[in-house]
């Protein structure tokens, strides 16, 4: 009951924040001479009205759910892992690499996913070990590893996995290891189920297993966790392991499950920033796997809405980004409702003084 109420409040707050963001952004649009009404009609028509739109939002949400989980799991355990970006690169590439050999369809997909998870883990290994053994802040090591990973991924794309006939991209993933498209005529694939399933698994892990209990304990109060027999090094390694897997899978959903490419391009244009966006999604979803699913769909909807606002309302993408920024800023005030309540109480207080 108590939990339900807390959840409802969190949801209400997020919705209110989004609404406030939209209103403020509406004024900005207006100020620049665009019509906010038609912009928002375009936005919602595009992303949430019909199946086509919803599919677009979900397709965008797929990788974001996974990279957000990377951040959220760590945050729950008191770590600030922003390495999803780099780990995701290798996940995407490893999934492609699985197409260097042939396997029966289906199995091939599983193997590619395993590759991706393993690659993500591999790339999170050094920061995790540095943190566990030398206390090196994961903030710095993961930022550095993101950049290092970026260049190594460039190299892998251009030299190792390169498509011999089209050097701007890697070899194309074999059909047998792709996620089939879920809604024909859209870019939504079955990968969304993977993302949601992983989120549910993470939820189960965090709140229904002793391992999760220990992770959360380490995050909420490291001293008490130690007192309760939780080994912090173990938790760190586990967090990075999990984070690496989810980030790796996030990459895989892009190279295996996003038509039409099924390959990674030079310069990584289709996967860049998914890791960073995931941080925003995790924050909006309050680092809770279920909240993350909704936050990712919302964020994904904004992204696909952005395309359509250009098309129908003539609003340039840059302006759409401004709008997104404002909405996210409104979301930063997690206790909007509380603020309203404080205003109310102020009045009581003043009344009482008389």
């Amino acid at each position, binding site marked *: 009951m108590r939990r339900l109420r807390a959840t409802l409040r969190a949801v209400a707050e997020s919705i209110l924040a989004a609404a406030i963001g939209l209103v403020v952004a509406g004024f900005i649009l207006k100020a*620049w001479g665009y019509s906010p009404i038609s912009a928002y009609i375009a936005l919602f028509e595009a992303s949430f009205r019909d199946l086509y739109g919803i599919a677009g939002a979900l397709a965008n949400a797929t990788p974001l759910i996974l990279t957000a989980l990377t951040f959220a799991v760590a945050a729950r355990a008191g770590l600030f892992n922003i390495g999803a970006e780099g780990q995701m690169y290798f996940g995407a590439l490893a999934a492609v690499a699985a197409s260097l050999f042939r396997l029966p369809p289906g199995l091939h997909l599983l193997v590619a996913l395993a590759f991706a998870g393993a690659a993500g883990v591999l790339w999170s290994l050094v920061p995790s070990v*540095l943190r566990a053994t*030398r*206390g*090196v*802040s994961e*903030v*710095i*090591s993961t*930022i*550095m*590893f993101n*950049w*290092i990973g970026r*260049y*190594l991924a*460039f*190299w892998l794309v*251009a*030299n190792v996995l390169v498509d011999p006939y089209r050097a701007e991209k890697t070899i194309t993933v074999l059909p047998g290891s792709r996620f089939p498209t879920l809604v024909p005529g859209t870019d939504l694939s079955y990968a969304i189920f993977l993302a949601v399933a992983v989120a549910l698994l993470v939820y189960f892990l965090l709140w229904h297993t002793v391992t999760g209990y220990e992770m959360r304990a380490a995050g909420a109060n490291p001293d008490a966790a130690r007192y309760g027999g939780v080994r912090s090094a173990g938790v760190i390694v586990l967090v990075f392991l999990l984070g690496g897997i989810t980030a790796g899978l996030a990459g895989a959903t892009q190279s295996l499950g996003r038509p039409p490419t099924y390959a990674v391009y030079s310069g990584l244009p289709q996967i860049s920033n998914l890791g960073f966006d995931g*941080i*925003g999604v995790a*924050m*909006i979803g309050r680092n809770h796997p279920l909240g993350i699913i909704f936050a990712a769909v919302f964020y994904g909807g904004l992204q696909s809405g952005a395309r359509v606002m250009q098309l129908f309302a003539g609003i*340039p*993408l*840059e*302006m*759409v*980004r*401004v*709008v*997104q*920024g*404002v*909405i*996210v*800023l409104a*979301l*930063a*005030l*997690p*206790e909007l409702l509380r*603020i309203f309540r404080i205003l109310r109480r102020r009045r009581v207080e003043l009344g009482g003084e008389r």
Partner: protein
Amino acid sequence: MTLGYFWSILFLSLHAMVPITLTAAGEVVGERAGLFNIGLEGILLLSAFTGALGAEAGGWPLGLLVGIGTGAVVGLFFGLVNAYWKGNQLITGVGINLFALGFVAFGLQALGTPGFHDVPRDVRLPAIQTPVGGLSPIVLLALVVPFAIHWFLNRTRAGLWVRAVGENPEAADVAGVPVELVRLLATTFGAALAGLAGAYMAISWMGSVTKEMAAGRGFIALATVVFSGLRPILTLAGGFIFGFFDSLATWIANIPGVKEAVPWQFVSTIPYIATLLVVTGVIGRVRFPKALGVPYRRE
């Protein structure tokens, strides 16, 4: 390599150091006061843009002022949201970054050439001519600022207040320190320095604005803050190490023969690996202010 190369790399490194060191040193002040601003990337970009506009309107002094002012305004906003309204610092930062990315790209488009704006040479900050090349005066400033901040934090009353509200806002409050105000001012100051860094990029270092000119420097600055262990003077070292290896990597990549042996992508990773090695080998565990990132509420 000849002496000329040496000077060249040194100057390259110094110039590359400036935005990182200034931004990081400012962020040290903010973080010491307990606010963690990941919107620095956005501030760099915004103030580069406004700084350029300012310079064109009234010369480089105005440009620098406008850049600093832009940073300060964003910092003020960040401080209001987080010090007073107890907002979520991470989300605010993400929002600022998104906003800046859109706003600057849009603004550049509105100016004429989308994505790129050239700052005329006559309104740029003049470089100090040395026998071995031009040196931006901001480089000298960046060499001084961390020391000034060090002095401020450790030797002044206001510095004491800043550290106190970051370590134990409750204790500071009880002692009569206006916690919210100190946090607000500290983060505003930090953002203003980032604003200076942005203006420097636009009207001194690059002489132009592009929509992606921050190019991750805000995040590198955040890493540098961690690197420094929140000691302002070490942000100089952090910024320089990064700037040096970044420049060195570009140099190495240009030496005939090297690129046949080592792919350029590997060379490009040098600054990051070097920074990481220094952190691992020298800095190790970092102690953050206890109340970093935690909103302060009285009840």
